[in-house]
């Protein structure tokens, strides 16, 4: 029945003069290959699915130079099988073979082919994507096929999509009574996404009742879309905020708490990112099984590497500068130059490829929203980092000792606090946090020697807006800036948006010269 279905499905399939679809696929011209795929899909040949899959996965091989019988082989785990028969053949000499490569047109052909084939696949997910494809193509010709699929579709979700696909197809075709068409319109209205809207918008010369229905549908689709876009901007703002927060939280320690004007902060982030790269390489080399989790290993690794580096820096450099905080600017600036060049010399000036594990790629559809998974993770991670940081500071009065040392180093020593210890620890902590931020940023940005430079200014801005030395402030500052930016962007474009944010910042500081949460009273001057 599958065959029947298919032949019904694509009645308009143009048969290529050459006849044999396999020969066409073996051809070198992409357009012919594409026709071959289409023809094969509709030919009802039982090998169709296997061959097309092989083609998609780049497992399909042809003879390097033209041959009348145009042989095709599928490379399997064990060896080669003949594409036509599926019978195993002894491996031909590699030099004679060429992989059949595909381009966009071929891929498109494969997609529709699979759409047709997929409708009757075992796996509901596959059926769903197939249905989606058909919905998108809204091809009246496919109507009968869709209906046939609907009749024996058990899965509610898939059925829904099929109904929508049917509605789309119906509306595109010009048959169907007014009532059925109106029903179809409502069907699409429920779906209320851009594609539905556009499809409806593209319908003209409908009978009045239908036209009215369409207008209505479009109207409330628009309303919903407007709402969603608001939520969407909010989300963008928050996720940008999360990135800023990550970038800044390390600085909130080294600068906010310690008062070190830490120009090398960006390089700490960079260190974290490169650690990620190295870890991924090592994992890939030593235990490929864990590839997916290289990132998770990188987080503590980055913390240790950057943190360690931080401690070294503090011991060898910063500690001589307490009491002359302004000079830390000079030293750390020099340091950042050195670190950048060091990375450039070790890894080369070009970007490094940090891969995203599967669980961090792709996106979720929540209502009208498309939330990219990596951003979700980053938001979560940012909050975790901040939370962890606060916890650490609570723990064993560490935070108290740190603040005591920073407020009056000599008196802290008199109270028996190991000041050198605290200094090193604090700077290490801040650097380590920056390192962890680097892991996250490696997922959304270039891993290059300049990575740090892209974040240093924003980081300082965030810390300052939040009010120096106030972690909550850093949180709010980051989110505030993120949201402002993302709400301006749609109207003014990205470039002006950034300018406006900066101006906003300047004015904001006028109003709140001590940041979001200023200290009041005598303590402020003390």
């Amino acid at each position, binding site marked *: 029945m599958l065959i029947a279905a298919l032949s019904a499905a694509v009645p308009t399939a143009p048969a290529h003069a050459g006849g044999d679809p396999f020969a066409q696929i073996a051809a070198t011209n992409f357009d012919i290959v594409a026709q071959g795929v289409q023809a094969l899909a509709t030919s009802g040949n039982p090998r169709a699915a296997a061959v097309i899959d092989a083609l998609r996965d780049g497992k399909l091989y042809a003879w390097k130079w033209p041959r009348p019988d145009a042989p095709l082989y599928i490379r399997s785990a064990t060896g080669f099988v003949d594409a036509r028969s599926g019978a195993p053949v002894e491996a031909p000499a590699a030099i004679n073979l060429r992989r059949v490569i595909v381009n966009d047109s071929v891929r498109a052909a494969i997609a529709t082919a699979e759409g047709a084939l997929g409708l009757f696949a075992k796996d509901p997910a596959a059926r769903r994507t197939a249905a989606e494809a058909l919905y998108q193509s809204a091809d009246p010709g496919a109507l009968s096929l869709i209906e046939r699929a609907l009749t024996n579709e058990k899965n509610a979700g898939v059925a829904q999509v099929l109904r929508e696909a049917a509605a789309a197809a119906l509306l595109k075709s010009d048959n169907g009574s007014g009532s059925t068409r109106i029903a179809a319109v409502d069907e699409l209205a429920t779906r209320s996404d851009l594609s539905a809207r556009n499809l409806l918008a593209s319908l003209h010369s409908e009978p009045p009742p239908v036209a009215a229905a369409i207008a209505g549908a479009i109207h409330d689709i628009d309303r919903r879309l407007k709402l969603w876009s608001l939520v969407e901007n909010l989300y963008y703002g928050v996720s940008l905020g999360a990135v800023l927060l990550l970038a800044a939280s390390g600085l909130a320690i080294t600068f906010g708490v310690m*008062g070190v004007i830490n120009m090398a902060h960006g390089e700490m982030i960079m260190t974290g990112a490169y650690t990620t790269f190295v870890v991924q390489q090592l994992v890939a080399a030593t235990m490929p099984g864990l590839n997916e989790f290289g990132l998770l290993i990188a987080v503590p690794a980055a913390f240790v590497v950057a943190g360690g580096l931080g401690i070294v820096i503090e011991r060898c450099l910063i500690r*001589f500068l307490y009491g002359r905080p302004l000079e830390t600017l000079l030293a750390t600036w020099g340091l950042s*130059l050195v670190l950048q060049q060091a990375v450039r*010399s070790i890894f080369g000036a070009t970007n490094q490829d940090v891969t995203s594990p599967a669980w961090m790629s792709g996106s979720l559809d929540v209502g009208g929203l498309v939330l990219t998974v990596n951003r979700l993770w980053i938001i979560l991670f940012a909050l975790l980092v901040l939370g962890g940081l606060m916890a650490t500071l609570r723990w064993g009065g560490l935070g108290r000792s740190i603040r005591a040392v920073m*407020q009056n180093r000599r008196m802290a020593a008199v109270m028996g606090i190991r000041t050198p210890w605290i200094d090193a620890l604090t700077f290490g902590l801040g650097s380590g946090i920056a390192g962890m931020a680097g892991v996250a940023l490696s997922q959304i940005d270039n891993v290059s020697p300049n990575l740090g430079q892209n974040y240093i200014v924003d980081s300082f801005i965030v810390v300052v807006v939040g009010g120096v030395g106030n972690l909550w402030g850093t949180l709010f500052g980051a989110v505030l800036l993120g949201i402002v930016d993302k709400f301006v962007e749609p109207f003014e474009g990205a470039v002006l948006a950034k300018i406006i944010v900066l101006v906003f910042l300047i004015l904001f500081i006028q109003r709140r010269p001590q940041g979001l949460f200023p200290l009041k009273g005598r303590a402020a001057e003390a």
Partner: protein
Amino acid sequence: MRLDRANIATLSCVLGGAAVLAAMNLLIPAVSPLHVPDFVIAIAGKYLCYAILALAIDLVWGYAGILTLGHAAFFALGGYAMGMYLMREIGARGVYANPTLPDFMVFIGWTHLPWYWYGFSHFWFALAMVVVVPGTLAFVFGWFAFRSRVSGVYLSIITQALTYALMLAFFRNDMGFGGNNGMTDFKDVLGFPLNRESTETGLMLVTATVLSLSFLLARAMIHSRFGKVLIAVRDAEPRTRFLGYRPESYKLVVWTVSAIIAAIGGALYVPQVGIINPSEFAPGNSIEAVIWVAVGGRGTLYGAILGAMLVNLGKTWLTSALPDIWLFAIGGLFIVVTLFLPRGITGLFTTRQPPKGSKQASAATEASMREAAR
């Protein structure tokens, strides 16, 4: 006093040095080994401009304790004002031979000159703008900032934001300042071809003179009672209020003066390097300029000049001598200076205060910085 001698020395170094270079370039025939090539004149002129910027920064940072991370903005604005004049000077000699419109405007398809370009064909007008525009910006910015008692790093950051915003703004082509390519391919200033040796030398000498003058001005300011008040403000701003001083107006004066000095430096810079574009606004530039001051020695005017000169000399030399690893060298230099020359290179010459400042003194600055850091 000791300091004074150092100052006089700097002055004579700047002027004398410039004069000698000029002479050796113009009078001595090119064949002679003693001849100073134009290249040297050109970079000397460039350094002198940087020195002016450094001086301006030291005035506000070293004496009023305002750590500005956006002074390059005024430098660049001055540069743009001058650039606009030079652009108009080109006249019909541009590639599109448009008598009024600069090439880049023709290029983005504008048909007539925007109003804010009027007048820039006159040198005097451009000069006025060099002072007025950055001066006004600085005044307005400072007036708001100081009046609402923005201080310490909060001020530093908004100065940074200011220059950053300006950079992005000037990047935009439709601002009418040449987008990120900025302005270049200048022909001549006041009729003197820019690429003629004598013009280059002349510009260099002018720059040296301007530097000396602004140096004297700055010195006069900080040695007056005004200067003492500035230092008092730097140490304990709240306390000065109870003596009846208004710190904000003091800061505003020195801030605006400093901005104007920087702007003039920028105006001299452009004809000598032959290009002005938004990257001059880059936050990094301002920070680098602050670095020069720190290297030379914050709070000693001649230190600022020295720092600017040395760092840039180092940069010029290292980028050719060790192109692949020069950052190690220059970065290392900065670190070494902070560690071993707490008061910058000039710290080597003066022994006005006990090394590293006494415990209490440092505690005091620490406190005041904490103050600032909040």
